[in-house]
Structures are given as structure tokens and as C-alpha cells.
């Protein structure tokens, strides 16, 4: 018996949770952003796994869209981070605290 749906999904779920924990724990915006990418990658993996186990190709087409969107988000996100770094000389989330009541 070879590895089944459960095993692949467990890997993807673990990566998702690790990414989530990283988003919360890390303070560096760039690293936080990498963790977000990790979460998206977990989604990609789950999608591929399901697509293959269902024997369909639709899921993989959707994966294509996910990857495109993720790349787009990275581009905009990094542009924002660069702009922020230029303006504030920081990439730390906990230093972003000017917006208060």
C-alpha cells in the first residue's frame, strides 16, 4: 500500500499551519511575507493532491491561477515593502504603530 490521500494532505496541512504560525510569530515583514507564501504553497499542494486523487485536471488549472496570483502578490508586496523601507528605514512590523485612534 503506497502513501494515500491522508499522508499528502497531512504534509500540506502541516506546512499551512507552520506558515500561519510564522506569520504570527515573526516580526520582519519580509519573513512574514515568506510565511504567507508558504501558506499559499500548502494550498497549491493540497489542490494538486486532490486533483490527482480525483483523476481530474481542473484542479491543476486552478493551481496555475494560484501560482500566478501568488507571484503577483509577491511583486506588489515587495514593492510596498521597498517603499516602506525607503520612507521609514524599517522592515519590522512592530514599528508600524502610527495608526492609532
Amino acid at each position: 500500500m503506497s502513501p494515500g490521500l491522508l499522508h499528502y494532505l497531512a504534509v500540506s496541512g502541516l506546512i499551512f499551519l507552520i506558515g500561519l504560525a510564522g506569520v504570527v510569530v515573526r516580526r520582519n515583514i519580509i519573513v512574514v511575507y515568506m510565511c504567507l507564501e508558504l501558506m499559499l504553497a500548502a494550498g497549491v499542494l493540497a489542490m494538486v493532491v486532490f486533483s490527482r486523487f480525483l483523476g481530474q485536471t481542473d484542479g491543476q488549472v486552478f493551481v496555475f491561477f494560484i501560482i500566478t496570483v501568488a507571484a503577483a502578490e509577491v511583486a506588489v508586496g515587495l514593492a510596498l515593502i521597498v517603499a516602506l523601507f525607503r520612507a521609514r528605514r524599517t522592515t519590522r512590523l512592530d514599528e508600524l504603530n502610527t495608526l492609532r485612534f
Partner: protein
Amino acid sequence: MIGLASGAMAATGLAPAGHGMPWWQVPEFCWLLVGTVLLLGGCWGPEPLRGRAGAVSTAFFGLMFIVGLFFWRPGGEAFGGFYRWDGLAILFKRLFLFGGLIASWMMLRSPDGPRSERIEYVALPWFAVLAMGLMASAGDFAVLFVSLETLTITSYILVSLERDRATSLEAGIKYLIMGGLSAAFLVYGIALLYGTCGTLRFDEMASRLPGALAGELGPVARAGLLCVMVAVAFKVAAAPFQWWVPDVYQGAPVPITGFLAVASKAAGFAVLLRLLWGPFAGVREALVPMIAWLAAASIVVGNFGALSQRNLKRLMGYSGVSHAGYLLMGVAAGTAAGVEAVIYYLIGYAAAVFVVLGLLAGLVDRLGGADLRHLNGLAKREPGLAWLMLVGLASLAGLPPLVGFLGKWLVFVAAFQAGLVWLVIVACVGVVASLYYYLAPVRGMFFEPPPPDAPSLELDIPYRTCISVLMGITIILGVAPGPVVAAIGGLLAGQ
């Protein structure tokens, strides 16, 4: 050339009743065309044109809105069912165009940040409205996901475009991280739903989801359902996924805040309704308790969070969270009356928000800021404007005879009818509490003295007229709701 012609035809939306709608009748193509032409013209066009790009964009928004209002008829679908053209889609598209129209008008006139000579401010709303339109028409999770992300990414850019202001960038970053998180949840949720139902099409999923939930993979499907709902709750700014709202509303330029508060929230509700009356129709009953809890949490967090705010934009953020709660009540009712109420509420909310934020956008630099204390003595400096602001706030607070009252009434009745009595009680408490913070600016405007060396306020006549018209809408829709409610009902029934 062909594109232009097809765009013009698309704008008229001469879609025949029944199925099958040629791609060139999809109005989003027309909007895409306008946005692209504006972008290119703004970059390389002749100088006099570039200076007028904002006015041109506003005019086109107006044109499209009028076309949408008078010529669109429901019925049909395009792209093999990926694109729906029904009453729900039409109603929401009109709302988006209205939001785009007022927001671009505000950008055109507002001294706050965005200027019409900056072409990205002119073109990006078109792409955002396009994405919203597709969200409202989505017939497949691929369309939904891609258009939702397009809207979100456009919003990041719009929020942080004022990059010489640190707050703007900070808001952008916070929005970016929270948006990324919600995108991750959306992706994972879609993956789980796809895995259990074996399809991404809405219509197919509607028939397969109940079976999937009952089957071996039921818990997986349920987790997927919840992940998708989390992402939608993020989009409509419902608690406990609302954390980004106050910061983003405060940090963004005022016209953008208005655009987000109205159009982006409406887009979230379009998706929610689309999902609950599409792929999730079979499990709507099971989702009602969750939506009701989200509604209650939003009402409590929004209303009580707003109490201690000192910045009007931030206050509008919290108030937006509470309004998301009231709107979710209508959704939780799960009835046709509930959907009608939600759409009516959204229209009234849009008008009232634009009255308040429109005034703020026009006055913010003369007032010296958007804090509540900056409004002090407005009644003595400019009584007319103070009264306009008063009407806007009163409508948001739900006072009759304004539309805010009627919208709340309809929503409450729908929830009550569905047996959500506890939720109605919570909402009533929220409405009472909301009076405290809506009265705070009123009190400042009417009862406090103006700052000693206040510059004179000036707002040109067209701008005043525009705001007055919006105020008129809040009054007319509150006094004579009949035709609009009937139109909404008719469009939804024809779906």
C-alpha cells in the same frame, strides 16, 4: 476598433433573454477598455488630455452607471457558465459603478491626496470595479478567486499610493498581510471543497456539496467551507476578521476610504450571496448559525469599538464593521426578503457613507485633519455643510425618516422572521449604543466653538450639489422606498 465597437455594444448590455450571451456583451470588457485607454492616454497622451483624465474617467463612470441603470436586463450567461448575468449581478454591478463614480468624483475634487493628474488614481478604480463586477457574476471558483485577488491587490495599491505619507504605506502593509492571510485561507478552503466535491463549478458543487458533507470526507468539506467563509468574512469586514479595517480606513486617502467602505464591502456581500445561493445553497441552513454569530460579533465589536475613537475615518471603519453585522443579519435570515433587505441597506449605506466621507474629503485640509475635534464648530463656520453631515450621520445611526432606518428595519424584520430573535435584540442594543458615537461629531459641530484661527471653509458649488444629491437620496429612499424595493424584488425574482 473592433474592441471599441464591441465595448460600446457591451455597455448597452443588449443581452437577449435566455442563455448564451456573446462575450462582447459582457460589460466588464467595456470597463477594461476604458481603464486601459485611460492608462495609456495618461502615460503617452497629449498634455491637455492628461490633465483631464480624472474628469474623463468620472464622466465615463457616470455614463456606464446610467447605461447600467436603464438598459441592463437580466438573463443569460457567458463563457460556458463561468459568467452569470442575473438580477443579483446587475444590482451589485450598479452599486459598484455608483461607488466608482462617487469615489472618482471625490478624487477629482478633493484636496486630500489623490489628484486627477496622477493617472494611476484614475485608472485603478476601473480595474477594481471590473474585478468586483466579475466577483458578482462568478459562476466558478476560478473566476471568483482570481477576480477577488485582483480587487484585493488593486486595493493594496490604492491604499498605499500616497507613499509620501507614512500612514498610507503603513495601512497598505497591514492590509497586505491580512489580505495575504485571507487569500491563503481562501485557497486552502477552495482546495478542500474541490477535493471533496470534485468540481469548481458553482452549479455542480451545489448539487454535490450536501452529499460530500454527509459522506466520508464530510469533515474535510466542512473545513473547506469554513475557510472560504473566513475569507469572505474578511472581505466584508466582519468580526473577528475585521482587524485591518480601522487602520486601513484611517491610513488611506479619504476618497479611497469611501471606495473601500462602499464598493469593496458590497463586493464581499455579492460574493457571500452568490455563494450562499449558489454552491452552498444546500448547506445554507447549517451555515446560518455561524453567520448569525459573525453578525452579532461584528455588531458588538463595531459599535463598542467606535465609542472611543477620535478620528472620523477610523470611526467610520468601526461603524463599517457594525454595518457589516447588520447586513449579515439579512444574509443570516436566508430568505428572499433578507437578500432584498441587504441590497436596499447597501444602497442606503453607500449614500450615507459618501455624504459623510465626501464632506470630509472636500474639507479635510481646511479643517486641518480628520479628527473629531477638527469638526468642532462646523455649524458656526458653515451651517449648511454641518447639516449635510448631520443627515449623513443620522442615516448611519438609523434615524427615521432616513434610509438608514428603513434598511435596518427591513433587515431586522427579515432576521426576526427567520427566528433570530436573539440577534435582533443584540442588534437593537448595538443601534442604541451607536448613538453615542454618531452624536459625538454632531455635538462637536453644533455645540463646540470653532478653533480660534480657523481658515474659512470653501467648497465649490458642484461639489456641494453632489453631496446634497446624495443626501437627497438618503431622504428620498427613506421616505418613499416603494419603487426601489419593488425594483430590487423584481430583479431578484427574475434571476
